[in-house]
Each structure stands twice: as C-alpha cells, then as structure tokens.
C-alpha cells in the first residue's frame, strides 16, 4: 500500500484509466510536460504520449466543449480546469450542454465526461484563485458533483466518476494535494455506485458533523482537540455533493439528534444550506433536539494575506466553538 498525496493517487487513477481504456484521454492547460499546475498529471505524457495527454491553449470554453463533443462520439474525456475559478469560462459547455443534452435530446445521447478542477483556499492565492464553486453545479440538474477529502477517496471517487455515464464535476481541494496517506489502489469498479455515497469518517453518538472536501480534515482536527475528548462525535464525509446521501445523514441523526454542517464555501445557496434544509424538511425536524448549525466561509472574496485568509475560511477553532455550543 503506497503512501501517496491525493495528487499522486489521482495520478494513479488517471494512469489506470488511460491504460485500460483506449478511448480515454486527458486535455487541459499545462497537463503535459509541466505535469499540471499542481503536479497531478506528472509523468502521464511520457507514459501515454501527446495523443492521449493533450495540452491545450488557455481556452477553458473549448476544453469543456470538446469534452462534450468527444464524449457524444465514443471517446471518454477527462479534462482539467487548472483552478476551479476558471470554470467560469466553461459554463456554457458544462451547464447548457453537458448537463442538459441527455434529457433535452430525449435520452438519445449520453455525455460521460469528467471535469477535474483544483479548488479551494489556503494557499494565499487570493480572490480569483481560491473559490469553492461546487454549490453552483449542485444546482444544475444533470450534473454530478464529487468532492474528495483525502488520497484514498480521491482515487476511488475518480475511478467511479470515470465509470459514470453522466457529466461529473470533480473538485480537488488544493490542500489535499499536500497530505500523504496509505492508499489501496483498487481496480476500476464495474459501476459508479460508489458515487452518491457518504462515508462515516468517524463514528460517534453525541453530535453529527456533516462536511465534505478538505473541510472534513479540519473537522477531524477540531474533533480531536483536547476540549472534546469526553464527547463522541460522528463525522459524515459526503464525498459526493450532488446527489447527496441523505440516507447516511438520516441514520446518523437518528442516533445523535444534533446536526452541524461545515464547509469552506460561503453559506448562501450552498451545499450546506441544502443539507440543513433537506434535513429539517423531513421527519428529522422532530428528531433534532436543538437547532442545526452551519459553519461556512464568510460571505467575502478571499483576501491574499494569510491572517485575513484564515478569517474567511472556517478554522478548527471555529468548529470547536460551534460544537461546544451545541453539546
């Protein structure tokens, strides 16, 4: 079991996909010789050649658009947005085309594409290179949205995203590129049923914290702080934020009766409000003992200075405070 960062495990997943599927290819900016802005595609050009690892001009719209056209005609594209912030330039192919064509053409076509994007803050890259935009895509019928939190689920979720017959937005938080862990290199799964399944990152009985992407790691740190050693806290890692696995959330809440949701993105119209809203719209409204809470990023662009940046992103202390308030 190799020790890998999420960047490296994604690299392994990509390599496996490319090796097993001749119709698969990658396209994106600086994914070839440069190996990707975060090194995720390092070595793949050497291994698979420039026919399969396609460096593009700085043209996000056609990167996503070519994926749509290629996927409709028997190819299996996996394309990269260097920073998820640049996906703004590819919204038409993703939202008006990829998401809709299957439905709009009455089921006549499928658009199985994976759009990988490096997302999130914490690297001092400021307002235009630090956003967490997954919530937008959750609002769009026809898309699936996947948000790994570590090297292992990044690997497994990417394989499942590839296997899926729908367009998948795959958001890779930059900070998970930096943490090493042991990764089991599973084979490509037969189906994509792993998508849409949350995982229990930690079992507990006193409170449920629902989170996703890198914020799961911050939640874990918070929960392991001394102040909380006498409590039993369950952490649900959504893994896929569209569709959301409400079954797992429900089972957890029946046990804990308390809901805290944590995310890096700002709150309004987000994954977090979806979780809270869906929970209280259901029977769980009567199960919850206290008001649910949502800890999220400030409603502010990301500042560049480190001390300001960490004001905008929830820190483990913020999560600790929220948990303590609820216990």
């Amino acid at each position, binding site marked *: 079991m190799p020790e890998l960062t999420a960047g490296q495990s994604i690299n392994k997943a990509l390599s496996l996909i490319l090796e097993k599927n001749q119709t698969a290819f990658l396209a994106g900016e600086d994914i070839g010789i440069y190996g990707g802005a975060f090194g995720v595609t390092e070595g793949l050009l050497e291994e698979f050649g420039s026919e399969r690892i396609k460096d593009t001009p700085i043209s996000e719209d056609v990167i996503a*658009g070519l994926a749509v*056209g290629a996927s409709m*005609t028997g*190819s299996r594209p996996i394309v990269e947005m260097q920073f998820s912030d640049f996906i703004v330039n590819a919204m038409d192919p993703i939202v008006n085309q990829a998401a809709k064509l299957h439905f*709009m*053409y009455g089921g006549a076509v499928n658009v*199985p594409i994976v759009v990988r994007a490096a997302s999130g803050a914490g690297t001092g890259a400021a307002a235009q290179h630090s956003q967490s935009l997954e919530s937008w895509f959750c609002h769009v019928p026809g898309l699936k949205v996947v948000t790994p939190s570590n090297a292992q689920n990044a690997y497994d979720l990417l394989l499942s995203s590839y296997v899926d017959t729908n367009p998948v937005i795959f958001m890779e938080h930059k900070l998970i590129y930096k943490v090493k862990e042991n990764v089991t290199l599973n084979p490509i799964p037969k189906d994509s049923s792993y998508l849409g399944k949350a995982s229990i990152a930690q079992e507990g009985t006193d409170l449920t914290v629902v989170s996703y992407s890198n914020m799961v790691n911050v939640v874990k740190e918070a929960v392991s702080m001394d102040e909380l050693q006498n409590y039993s806290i369950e952490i649900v890692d959504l893994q896929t934020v569209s569709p959301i696995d409400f079954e797992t959330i429900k089972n957890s809440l029946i046990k804990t009766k308390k809901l805290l949701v944590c995310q890096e993105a700002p709150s309004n119209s987000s994954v977090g409000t979806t979780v809270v809203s869906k929970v209280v719209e259901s029977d769980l409204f009567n199960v919850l003992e206290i008001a649910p809470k949502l800890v999220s990023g400030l409603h502010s662009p990301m500042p560049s200075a480190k001390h300001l940046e960490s004001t905008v992103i929830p820190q483990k202390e913020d999560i600790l405070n929220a948990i303590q308030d609820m216990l």
Partner: protein
Amino acid sequence: MTLTLDKQLELHRMMMLIRLFEEALEEMFSRGLLHGTMHLSIGQEASAAGACLALDKEDLITSTHRGHGHCLGKGADPFKMFAELLGREDGYCRGRGGSMHIADLSNGNLGANGIVAGSLTISVGAALSFQMQKKDNIVLCFFGDGAVNEGSFHEALNLASLWDLPVLFLCENNQYGMSMASDKAVAGESIASRGNSYGIESIQIDGNDVEAVFESVTSFKNEILTTNRPKFIEAVTYRYRGHSKSDRNLYRTSDEIEYWKEEKDPIKRYIGKLIESGVTEAKLKEIDEGVKELIRNSVKKALDSPMSPVTNLEEDSYA
C-alpha cells in the same frame, strides 16, 4: 464537377421538403398547435440541402436554433420532427427538446442547439473523436453569422486549426443575427477572412446556389480527409421570415426581403436551371407532389400520435 440527374433531383426535392415542412409548421403555429417559438429557415434551404447531401451518413453535423433544414437534410423523418414539436412520445426527443433541440444520432445529426455558437466547441470534440478513431469522416458544423462574434467561435477555430481536426465550419451568413446586420457585428474584412486568420482555408460562396454549396462541401470534405486540415465556408443567404415568431422586421426593408424572394430564391433559381437543362415540369411536379403528400401524412400521423407521458423527469435527467 457534374452532378447526376438523380443527385440534382434529390437536391431539389430536399429543398422542397425543407420549405414545405416549415410552411406546414407556420400553419400549425397559427392554428395554436405549437407551444413556444421557432426559427424558420425559409429562403435558406440551399445551404442545408446542398451541404447535408454532400455528406455520408457517417459524417456528423452539429446544428443551430434554426436547424429544421439541417435535420431533414441529414435524413430525419418529418413525422418524428412534427411529433417533437407537438410534444408527442414519437418525437425525436419525446417532447423534451422541441424545435430548437432535435438530435438524430442514427443519421449523424448531433443536434440542434439553442445557444448561439454552442455547437462550435462540440463539433471540435466530435472531430477529435474521428481523429483518434482514425475514421475517414468529417464533422460539419453549421452556425450563423451572429455566432462568429462569440468567444466560443474563436476558441473552437483556434483549436481545430492547431490540432488539424477534420471539421468543416459552415457559416450560414443570412446577414442578420436577429436584428443585428452582420457588417455591424463582425469587425474586419469578412466572415471568411476570419476563418483564414486561424490558418484555416476559407471561402465565401453563394449560399443560395444549391449546387455551389454541394460542390464546395464535397471538395472541402475531400481536402479535409487528404490534408488533415479543417476548412471554412461562408455561405451567403437570406431569411425571409422574422428571426422568430416575435419579430416585427423593423431592422430591414420590405424591398430587401422582396428582392431576395424574387431574384435569389434558391428553389426558384434551381427549378429554372433544371428546366433549362431539360428536366420536365411534369417531373418536378411529380417530386413536389410526393413531398406534399409526405408532409400531409406526417402532420396527420403526428397529430394522431400520443402525447409524451409524464414520466419521472428527475430520473430522466441522468443517464
């Protein structure tokens, strides 16, 4: 290039089919049978018919909001098209797409598209598949003069040229994007010169001369397959009807419309040419009657067919 009589009659028949199909739609619309709007290509039949009939079934097209002609040209069944516009289960998209969104994969039509320039990048991706699969086919991408000013146009042409993709860009320049005259919207010399600026060989042709369209698509297709370079055609044409059903035509004169109808109509001109070359009026009449009957029967069958059932649309949203 000399065309066989059969091919010539096929070109004529296809233009007639497109025209009568859309005239039938207009009538259905005025009878209140259609929900929503539609974009008619009446007057522009030569580019759709000439281009599509120059392709093989395995060649692909991408189309636009004004796509009925492209769809028919590529072999679609008018019954299933009428059914689509009427929201019937037998429609190409089971009533989910309507006028602007008909795809017909079995005939190589990747679909009409409601987003101006939305299909440009899609055509590039499809051409990439052909290249990777080493197929001897091309993708023909239809778009209007208005699409030329979208960023997607730029990115698509640049990439097609860089990657030597087998795509034939075909701009149907009907001289207006909605109310915007194309010379007020496209800076530089001409639309074809835009194509050239990406290192893509580009020509401007009379888009109302069906044989000219047929011939340039035929020869460009061959060149694409032999030289591995994309090509670009600007086909100059004209639309008689408003942009869509809500257009009051304030941005052009009725004289201009009349001129195109009288002097440049692609069907009228081609009939003249065919008769000059010895085709009898009777022969043409026979073809036209056949088309009329096909349209009549298709409309009737579509009106008689069942509405699309209300299924679980959330499930239908995913493959």
